[in-house]
């Protein structure tokens, strides 16, 4: 553990940082000695650097009073990132690791504050690759107003992991009076999404190059906390918010239908999917409703608040393209039914097994 802690008086005690001059990571960098410290300093500490950063202790420390200013409950979450390839149109594993964990905090109504960064590195990875990814994490964290305050690095034998796996754990504070849960949805509530679905899954699959398509699909990877707080400010009847990551929209809706014991009816012609993604799915036989997103949320609000909520979402840069896709009904609790463009109906079930491995 290397602690990147806020010094009490705002001053920072720095140790001398050597830039390592070998091109690739070796097992020596995981040995716990000077080589490891140099790697951590060069790659992570220098990227996450800020005036309050001082790698001294084995843990980050925060004043409870500072936390309490944001709300009345802590939110705490963790996620691991194993995406392949490490870099893809619209992002990279570092941006994903920061935004993904921020979103897991934010969908609970939390203000995200601190992140950890655990890195498992395969020997042979280029140090420049790590520098780029750490820089991307720092940029994403800065943009989102969160700090990466503690971390850990391990180097493993070639083949024991694939280049780089990241874990980020996040701490946030939930605003007083906010209680979002998948079990809160009532019959009549309206479901909203903040834009086109499936971009991340399609972008990753395309970036793997298996298909050799030149389709310009970018991942939608983005931190959604600011959008969510705009929504919560504008609308008091938000029942739940979820980010539609692995398993896509279909999985979130099924979880909500089960937890709230309502039926959910969505309309195919109202569900926004980019033409390129539709075409991509058509070729590969995939269903875009199950494709992963990394910057898309699903929420439900009371029917009378739907317009207000949509207006607030559409006013935000990550919410342009927000639409209502369907509603909760009393019939067939636990089931998600889609009305097709044809006027036919079909069940949208939970995904069986994996549609695509290692997308996040």
């Amino acid at each position: 553990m290397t602690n990147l802690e806020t010094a009490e008086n705002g001053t920072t005690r720095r140790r001398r940082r050597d830039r390592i001059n070998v091109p690739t990571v070796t097992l020596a960098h995981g040995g716990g000695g000077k080589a490891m410290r140099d790697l951590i300093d060069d790659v992570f500490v220098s990227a996450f650097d800020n005036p309050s950063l001082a790698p001294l202790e084995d843990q980050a420390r925060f004043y409870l009073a500072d936390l309490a200013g944001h709300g009345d409950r802590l939110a705490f979450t963790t996620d691991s990132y194993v995406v392949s390839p490490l870099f893809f149109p619209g992002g990279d594993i570092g941006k994903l690791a920061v935004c993904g964990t921020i979103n897991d905090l934010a969908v609970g109504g939390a203000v995200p504050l601190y992140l950890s960064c655990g890195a498992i590195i395969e020997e042979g990875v280029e140090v420049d690759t790590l520098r780029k990814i750490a820089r991307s994490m720092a940029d994403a964290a800065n943009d989102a107003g969160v700090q990466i305050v503690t971390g850990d690095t391990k180097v493993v034998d070639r083949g024991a992991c694939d280049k780089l796996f990241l874990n980020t754990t996040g701490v946030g504070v939930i605003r007083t009076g906010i209680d979002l849960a998948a079990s809160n949805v009532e019959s009549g509530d309206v479901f909203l999404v903040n834009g086109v679905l499936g971009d991340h899954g399609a972008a990753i699959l395309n970036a793997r190059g298996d298909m050799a398509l030149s389709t310009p699909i970018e991942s939608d990877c983005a931190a959604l906390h600011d959008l969510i707080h705009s929504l919560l400010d504008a609308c008091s009847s938000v029942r739940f918010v979820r980010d539609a990551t692995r398993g896509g929209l279909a999985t979130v809706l099924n979880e909500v239908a089960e937890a709230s014991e309502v039926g959910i009816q969505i309309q195919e012609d109202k569900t926004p999917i980019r033409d390129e993604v539709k075409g991509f799915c058509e070729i590969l036989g995939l269903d875009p409703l199950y494709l992963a997103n990394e910057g898309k949320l699903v929420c439900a609000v009371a029917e009378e608040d739907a317009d207000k909520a949509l207006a607030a979402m559409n006013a935000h840069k990550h919410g342009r393209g927000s639409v209502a896709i369907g509603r909760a009904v009393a019939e067939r609790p636990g089931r998600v039914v889609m009305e097709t463009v044809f006027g036919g109906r079909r069940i949208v079930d939970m995904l069986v097994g994996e549609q695509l491995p290692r997308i996040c």
Partner: protein
Amino acid sequence: MKYVDEFRDPEKAKFLLREIDKIVAAIASERDRPISIMEVCGGHTHSIFKYGIETILPDAIELIHGPGCPVCVLPMGRVDDCVALAEMPNMIFTTFGDAMRVPGSRKSLMQARAEGADVRMVYSPLDALELARQNPEKEVVFFGLGFETTMPSTALTILQGEADGISNFSLFCNHITIIPTIKAILDSPDLQLDGFLGPGHVSMVIGTDPYRFISEHYKRPLVVAGFEPLDVLHSVWMVLKQIAEGRAEIENQYNRIVPDDGNNVALESVSKVFQLREFFEWRGLGSIDHSGVRVRDAYAAYDAEKKFSVPAIKIADPKSCQCGEVLKGVIKPWDCKVFGRACKPETPLGALMVSSEGACAAYYQYGDIEKIHETTDAA
């Protein structure tokens, strides 16, 4: 989505549905059972469920979901052979992704991969040939699967491999052919079919002539159909019109893709590389004469069954499965004793629960809501 949306136009669908209603109203009163139309191809089954087409057709029409999902009809013994090949040392075993989960008697290819076998998903047999080129010290086997639709690409890959002198590539051939299978279904004594939607992609290769026996000998109409929802509705209407007019003909709804005499270049490559087997075993249907192909002796060096020793043990279908009856339309998926209970998409027992093109998996996933509820509620 140019070129596709026009085949999904809801207004045109409404028009077709009104026309279908008119014909059904005219002929249904003279009948004591529903009008049964079988879609032979799994691609149609998938479209029918994806767009909820069954839910908008009149009740008097019953769609029977036929045997046209090559993954579904693959017998367990052949999957065991795949696993045995994949687990050989120095082997890269390549397959289309949807065959990964098909259960063998011991394990699926996906489990074999988890246990260390080098199993790789490819999108085309040419990708497998490329892997062989890149890994000259390894053996690369391609799991060839599918009807006449995929046969030409496999045949051309073998011809390409031969031309390039690649000796570490071979084919585990499980290609099957649709005509003997339709005939076997028509010969089944418990069958009550009024017409067929013919497979669009297969017909793109073989044309429409090979279906003549269906109209001439069995007096049933067949309409070669495209895969978009409007194609399916249009083809259903064409079958109904034939029934109403007392005709039994082979018609081609999918003529924007399917030439009546097929694709001669593709057919030539197929007959150059493959020959009919005496018989081939189908999951759910049993052994059907001349329903599979194997690699000709001239290309034996590319035949994995000759190059390696595969167990080739026949494994009986699980006793509880009624896939055969479902395939022939004798029972509906939810009438099967294990449907939705022991047999689910995540743990398939029967062939039809394996792939999303299988009738049972389609019903389970997208299916007829009331029926599934009755079944799962009773469970």
